[in-house]
């Protein structure tokens, strides 16, 4: 058992329509690297020069990782990582 990653609709064409998947890793960055190894093309959609793209939000247990340590935010077995587009919402 590892960490669950939830994939947004916009990226599911690259994951064979999988809405979530399990990976191993001790940080968000490691977990995402494992995800990128599994699905071709995902890395460039989510990151640019090793950083999160500015319109991508990543949450661990509902908490934005930009409030934590970004890609270095630690994750534990059983945690849920959610990837979502940042552009939604308006008052």
């Amino acid at each position: 058992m590892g960490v669950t990653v939830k994939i947004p609709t916009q990226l599911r064409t690259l994951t064979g329509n999988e809405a979530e998947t399990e990976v191993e890793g001790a940080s968000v960055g490691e977990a995402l690297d494992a995800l990128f190894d599994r699905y071709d093309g995902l890395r460039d959609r989510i990151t640019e020069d090793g950083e999160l793209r500015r319109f991508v939000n990543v949450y661990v247990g509902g908490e934005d990782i930009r409030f934590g340590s970004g890609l270095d935010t630690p994750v534990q077995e059983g945690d849920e990582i959610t990837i979502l587009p940042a552009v939604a919402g308006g008052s």
Partner: protein
Amino acid sequence: MPAEALKCKECHSTYPLDASYVCEQCFGPLEVSYDHSALDDAPALRRKVQAGPPSIWRYADFLPFPQRPQTALDAGLTPLIRSERLAERLGVGEVWVKNDAANPTHSFKDRVVSVAVAKAKELGYEVVACASTGNLANAVAAHAAAAGLESFVFVPADLEEQKILATGVYGTHLVAVNGNYDDVNRLCTELSSEHPWAFVNVNLRPYYAEGSKTLGFEIAEQLGFELPDRVVVPVASGSLFTRIASGFEEWLELGLLEGRLPTFNGAQAEGCAPVAEAFAAGADVCRPIRNPHTIAKSLAIGNPADGVFALDLARRTGGSIDAVADDEIVEGIRLLAETTGIFTETAGGVTTAVLAKLAQRGDIGSDERVVLVITGEGLKTLDAVRDVVTVHEVEPTAASFAATVPAPAGVR
């Protein structure tokens, strides 16, 4: 048909005009792009606008519909009032108040929801939904009811009671989420992947945002097809702020207006000012605010979707994004009420207080024409003024009145 595609604001990839809102290549926001090549006769376009219906649909040529939609609850064409008393109190030349509280559900959100609900119907949706800080909730519930659509409205559980009741009354499915607006928004973004619903500010966001342009069109039309020198606008997600500019720019390009874009001043509350803080720091991205805490709940978006574009607009027009404290917000509400007779909600208090701050700082030239954009109604946030209103209690006798109530002090 003038709307031709959805286009990514970042990488310019194009997509068909359906319910999508994010670029599959770079996750950038999508917006409607138009082919306006047939709109080449500016005087005729002005006349057509003026002969149109008394609602946002007079601007249908500039909205993403093949023909003017029929809607059951119309928004827009709210008053633009010149206030000499407010200008005098602030010591500036010319102040106009755009009172968008004069919409069916008493906020500018009727504009965006009119457009989004019309698009939802066109695309065949039976359920509309939204994440809201209150005003959007009111509007979605009302416009869905009038259009005969089912609705789901998601709000933070600690919202003002007035906004909860004025949403529930329309017979919506009202969902109070234990969390702040950003939590509500994240939940709705997730749910929009799971349900075939039209979330007006998620998957219909490109169309929804077009509704805000009509506020720009209207200000310009009401000034006799002229641009003001400066606009002061509240900033929550930054969408309204940037779209008012889009409206002006579109009409400048088409020749309906002449001159240049006004100075854009954005207004935030100190308790949730990610855009103002980024502006002050010279940053080009906003650092999200984790726990917003302000009486201006309708502006309490800690992670503003259009923050980067708001920063860019303020900078390229020589404007700013400023923040004011809660007590200044209440002062702003009173200032507007005492000088114009318009009672605005806390967001309008923020905007008025920022205008006062700009005036005090000497940012506003004496020959400038300034438009203050008031987006919502004071009756929705009554708690904000509960402690600043004085009531004289008397016995029903002239003697008691004379002993209790002070003589007129002379109008300020």
